[in-house]
């Protein structure tokens, strides 16, 4: 037999599930022909692997696996939704905090360079009202007020610094500062707000009425 006939014979034997190891027609050829030997070995390996006894999967595996795939996808979607929701919530809180401090000290920067001015009447006083929007109740929030030398709180005229602790309920909280500017020069009030390890600080420029530059003022 030539190579083509040998290979067809191997195919036929394997197809019939016969052993070829002791086939007298094959072995003499296989001993001499490397290509047919490789072909035969590959065919036998393939058959052995295909016919390998295989343990059954656990009962109901198919139905359970499909159901698990569906359930896990839904759980993943829920997680994604809540993660997205949480991210949105964090973003909203961040915006809220920004808003709080912009309410606290509108348009003031944190580098000590006031950008928002409160126009103070010459020789008079003015109450500056600051709204603090607490997105959560804040226990033992610490407020520190620092004033320039030419500024004072009307009811604490000799104190350049005041510090106190308070609990802030959730929502809008009003801080009223009755301010006095003692001369014609510009002053400032620095407000620091601390809670749970967080700290925000900014200052408000107190501008004598004569120096009014038309800048935006906060609620007074």
């Amino acid at each position, binding site marked *: 037999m030539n190579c083509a006939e040998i290979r067809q014979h191997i195919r036929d034997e394997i197809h019939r599930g016969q052993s*070829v*190891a002791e086939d007298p027609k094959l072995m003499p050829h296989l001993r001499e022909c490397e290509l047919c030997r490789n072909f*035969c*070995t590959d065919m036998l*390996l393939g058959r*052995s*692997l295909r016919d390998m006894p*295989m343990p059954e999967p656990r009962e109901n595996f198919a139905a359970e696996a*499909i159901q698990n*795939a569906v359930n896990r996808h839904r759980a993943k979607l829920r997680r994604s939704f809540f993660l997205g929701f949480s991210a949105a919530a964090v973003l909203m809180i961040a915006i809220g905090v920004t808003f709080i401090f912009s309410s606290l000290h509108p348009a003031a920067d944190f580098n000590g360079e006031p950008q928002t001015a409160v126009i103070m009447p010459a020789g008079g006083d003015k109450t500056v009202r600051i709204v603090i929007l607490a997105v959560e109740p804040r226990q033992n929030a610490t407020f520190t007020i620092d004033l320039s030398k030419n500024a004072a709180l009307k009811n604490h005229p000799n104190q350049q610094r005041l510090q106190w602790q308070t609990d802030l309920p959730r929502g809008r909280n009003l801080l009223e500062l009755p301010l006095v500017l003692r001369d014609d020069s510009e002053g400032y009030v620095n407000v620091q707000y601390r809670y749970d390890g967080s700290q925000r600080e900014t200052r408000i420029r107190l501008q004598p009425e004569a120096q009014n530059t038309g800048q935006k003022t906060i609620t007074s």
Partner: protein
Amino acid sequence: MSRHKTQAARFEHLLAPHMNTLYKTAWRLVGKADEAEDLVQQVLEKLYPRTKKLETIEQLGPWLKKVVYREFVDNYRKRVRRPEHYPAENEDALENLRQPEDNPETLVLRAEDRQRVMRALDTLDGDNRALVVMHLVEGYSVAELAEIFQVPAETLKTRLRRARARLKKNLLV
């Protein structure tokens, strides 16, 4: 019926007829029932969000088998955490193997011994095991395997030759 229920029903309708084949394919690759189930589960979880795409595939059975193979190879590569390395011809000691050719009767005899074949298959690494199974059992051509593994056909031929040589060597051990 909600969109999810509809999708779940469609997915089950598509996959249920192929579950046995998927399990068998997975088992041939991993050799253990629980690991085969895990592999199938992993594949199903990746396929469910693609239910619409599954509906457009004409020959779903062969396509699913390829997905199982790819998943197995991906898992293997993640597990071994090393880049693919194919030794140059002269670096590969397997090139010098002459045992299978020197013992044709024994080789043929042992190639018919399923347990011995399985043990020899177990000695192959994940990539080569997948190659051998896909080529010898499933009958994928080198060109098809090159497409599945995203490897040039010539490279794949070399890998396949080495994998078969190793398998045959281990059959004779």
